[in-house]
């Protein structure tokens, strides 16, 4: 997928860069701010970021690809992150994930058939005392079961 950023996007990027470029170690805060606003980091803004921070494009690209959180492509619809770390496993996370994959018709890191969700693993949400846990958009949910996940998705589907 190629993305050509709109003038509006580029203006936003320039605004963020002007405001933050002088901060010590500014790259991660900048990438976070851009991803929060745009949903991902478009490929064609990488050279602008590199130039503003006096880095090479490869360095900026290297940072974006190193961290699991940053995306180079937009997510489909809402992001559903299910914890697959030990505490959640002990409380049935593997079954919950299998159920979600079946229900959404995609594997981890994939997009649901209807394009409404991106399914991703997460390694601990700090909700281990309420395992298994997941994050849907920016909402946290603990003590999950396949039935509760179904109810949650059904509720989402309502207008």
């Amino acid at each position, binding site marked *: 997928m190629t993305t050509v950023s709109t003038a509006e996007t580029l203006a936003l990027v320039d605004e963020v860069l002007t405001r933050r470029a002088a901060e010590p170690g500014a790259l991660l805060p900048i990438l976070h701010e851009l991803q929060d606003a745009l949903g991902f980091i478009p490929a064609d803004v990488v050279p602008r970021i590199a130039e503003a921070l006096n880095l090479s494009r490869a360095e900026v690209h290297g*940072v974006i690809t190193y961290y699991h959180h940053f995306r180079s492509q937009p997510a489909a619809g809402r992001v559903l992150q299910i914890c697959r770390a030990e505490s959640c496993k*002990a409380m049935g996370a593997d079954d919950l994930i299998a159920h979600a994959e079946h229900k959404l018709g995609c594997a981890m890191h994939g997009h649901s058939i209807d394009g409404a969700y991106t399914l991703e693993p997460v390694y*601990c949400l700090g909700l*281990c005392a*309420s395992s298994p846990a997941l994050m849907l958009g920016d909402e946290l949910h603990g003590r999950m079961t396949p039935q509760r996940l179904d109810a949650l998705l059904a509720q989402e589907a309502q207008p």
Partner: protein
Amino acid sequence: MSVTVYVPRDSAALAVGADRVARRIADEAARRGLDVHIVRNGSRGLFWLEPLVEVRTERGRIAYGPVTPDDVPSLFDAGFLSGGAHTLHLGPTEEIEYLKNQERLTFARMGITDPLSLDDYRAHDGFGGLRHALTLKPEEIVQQVLDSGLRGRGGAAFPAGIKWKTVLEAQAAQKYIVCNADEGDSGTYSDRMVMEGDPFMLIEGMVIAGLATGATQGYIYTRSEYPHAIATMNEAIRLAEAAGHLGGFKLEVRKGAGSYVCGEETALLESLEGKRGIVRAKPPVPALAGLFGQPTVVNNVITLASVPIILARGAAFYKDYGMGRSRGTLPLQLAGNIKHAGLVEKAFGVTLRELLYTYGGGSASGRPIKAVQVGGPLGTYLPESQWDVPLDYEAYAAIGGVLGHGGIVVHDDTADLSRLARYAMEFCAIESCGKCTPCRIGSTRGVEVIDKISQNQNRTQQVQLLRDLCDTMVHGSLCAMGGMTPYPVLSALNHFPQDFGLVNPDPQAA
């Protein structure tokens, strides 16, 4: 007269509906024409009871839980605003056994106060440590921390006072205090609770660390998975600064981006500098050449949060808790398949068995507990024969285990330890920073070898290969990611060989 009702705002309470409960209480009170003042406190850490609603009465705070929105009308009907009887009634909060028998030093205010109320913080002994620190010379503050016996709570258990002394004595124009709030271990949430439930305590600890070492800038590096902690910390910094509590110390929250190894202190510094979070070779240690090459204290949240009480009550007071060279208290975090999952702050020396049964109430499933992983994803799996070892850094090291950040994850007898060993290798492969081969490649090979063992392809040779591979990872890795992944793997293999198809299952058990 207005009645005060507490509904926690901790993430784990929100994740089981605390916001909906708070709204329902407000609506119901309005409908009945009652004057109710809702305070969003932190969590007491009794997570199986969340959302835990408390009411302030003449007899102290009375608890009800776990409360769902649908329970709210019946709570009003039962007169819960004056502590009335109800099926969810738990009595006075402070009298709940789980809480009553703890030794809460660091978590003394947790769940009691409104996390963002400076008045609450002051009313509950807040800033006492800072007030005392302001009367001392930097060396004297460092001496207090040394004398308290406080060791780093992030995993490596290095004495905090020695680290601070190194930074104090280093000559530099700029020094930094970096709070490691990356908390990536499964089964741990005490750092998150501090940031969400008592953020001024962490701020106070960091300001004291600045006074002690001459650092004037602090960073709190936390995880993108912790949005509520980030928001609360940012707001708390704003409030503390506006009220003049930072005394010129600059404090900023920085967000990671989903990388476990960024919890390792040098990878964390790389990430703070805006680079890929790859581990640096030591020496130089961060205390001499840390953030932007300057002398830097890197301490865990709980380490820094333990400092205010040490300065307020004295080193001897703190040191009186604990055993051997493990002084003070540790917030233990019960998680996984456990009935009463939650935070238990106790002096070092409590045993796992006591935690599992006296506090935890046994497994959540009601089935026998089989294996317990202590110390996060790089910690060992402990079989029942090891549950009476006191939680103490040295006692655990003696059985090849680690306390790590105090995370305890319980598995019942349906767990397959070969699957968990495989997962440990897989996690290492996913999260490896890639700098050294034993970790980067070894972990991927480890997954394959465990698969072959499970499928009985040359099982005996493959087990030998797995042991050799673990040996290489232990000795050839630059940091504990590759160096400790063999801990869960080998403990699973050694204590639960039957799960790897290695001994014939007991015919009686079949």
